[in-house]
């Protein structure tokens, strides 16, 4: 038996593309996290957000834990910590709700995002929350 990923149920790449603008706009308007997204080329940043959304909805991606460490290492210097991961997950949930995902789906995505929390924050894995 195969279960479809949320990525597929939402409608795959085109649906994710539509979600990128909403998600990105939310991040820029959220004073808790906006500064991490300053000063980067917006089109390229949007590509990365698309990769992010694809990954956390269970779509096709090749990211490893090491990629997550390398990709966020420069943000640690800016003070990246658990509160920011929480904020990202909160915004993610809000966008998915707007797009019609149900609570179970949103919880599943939050769990997926949480599973790389230690990598994003470059620390040894601890007990998962």
């Amino acid at each position, binding site marked *: 038996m195969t279960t479809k990923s949320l990525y597929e149920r939402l409608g795959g790449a085109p649906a994710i593309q539509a979600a*990128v*603008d909403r998600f*990105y*706009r939310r991040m*820029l308007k959220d004073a808790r996290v906006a500064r991490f997204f300053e000063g980067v*080329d*917006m*089109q390229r940043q949007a590509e990365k957000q698309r990769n992010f959304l694809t990954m956390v909805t269970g779509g096709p991606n090749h990211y490893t834990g090491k990629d997550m460490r390398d990709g966020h290492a420069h943000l640690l210097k800016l003070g990246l910590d658990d509160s920011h991961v929480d904020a990202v997950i909160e915004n993610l949930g809000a966008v998915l709700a707007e797009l019609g995902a149900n609570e179970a789906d949103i919880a599943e995505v939050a769990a997926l995002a949480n599973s790389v929390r230690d990598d994003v924050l470059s620390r040894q894995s601890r007990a998962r929350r």
Partner: protein
Amino acid sequence: MSRVQLEVDGIGIEADPGDSVLDACLRAGLAIPHSCRAGACRGCELQSVEDAARAVLACQTPATAGLRLRSGQAQLRRTALRLVRKEWLGDSTLRVVLEPQTRLQWEAGQYLFLSREPGRSRCYSIASPEELELHIAVQPRGHMSAWLAEDARIGDALEMAGPLGHCTHAAAQLDEPLLLAGTGTGLAPLLGVARSAIRAGHCAPIHLLHGSARPSGNYALDLLDSLSGVAVESWCLESHPDPRVRHGDLIARVRQFGSELASMRVYLCGAPALVSQLQRECFLEGVPLSRIHSDPFLPAR
């Protein structure tokens, strides 16, 4: 220190750890078009051999062992050009027209990688759908611009790679209101889009806002006067002797569009700081990124 081995177009290349892929390629004699070294001009885009859909910007990618890439962006073909016209617009901007020596397809608003000697190129945007018209801001001792201004003669040969870029009218619906905003020679691609729009029978309003920090940057007042079917505004941060130029800031002016922006297609070109600020303003006001076309004019590095 141990060197790393990578492969581009089947050719083995050695690089020092810390080199960008671009520097490693250039040192190995591969002629990859490049200009900004900042991920903006996309001349240096390569593909991953394993996954053709994965684009790699050579200037932004550190050389790592085992990396396998290929060039072969068909659109980055090289074309021989001849200089057929050059004239001053104001005291620091040159308008040049180049004639391709072989068939070339372009959209006004795209940019090309212009070179006068192998291995060094500079990006310039195309201001017209009819001929390769460029507007060149003349930089003191500029490799390309000062040469064009002082030494280049009609008939001289140049070469280009490209064109590239998405600041074109092609993506627009004819009934979408357009906002074209930029500074300095950022006007060139905006003019290209406006001219293409008129040619295509664009039926929604077209706003062209041209700003400058100094009076000399409003270099095309007469040219803009001759553009019918477009609502043109010229702005300058300093007061300008010509009454056609308004005194003020382009960003404040764009904000005045308010919620109207959300339904517009937006083109932003010129000074990088201004382009990125306007991009952000428009996006937060509700314009989808797919309807924001922008070219920050980063200097070559």
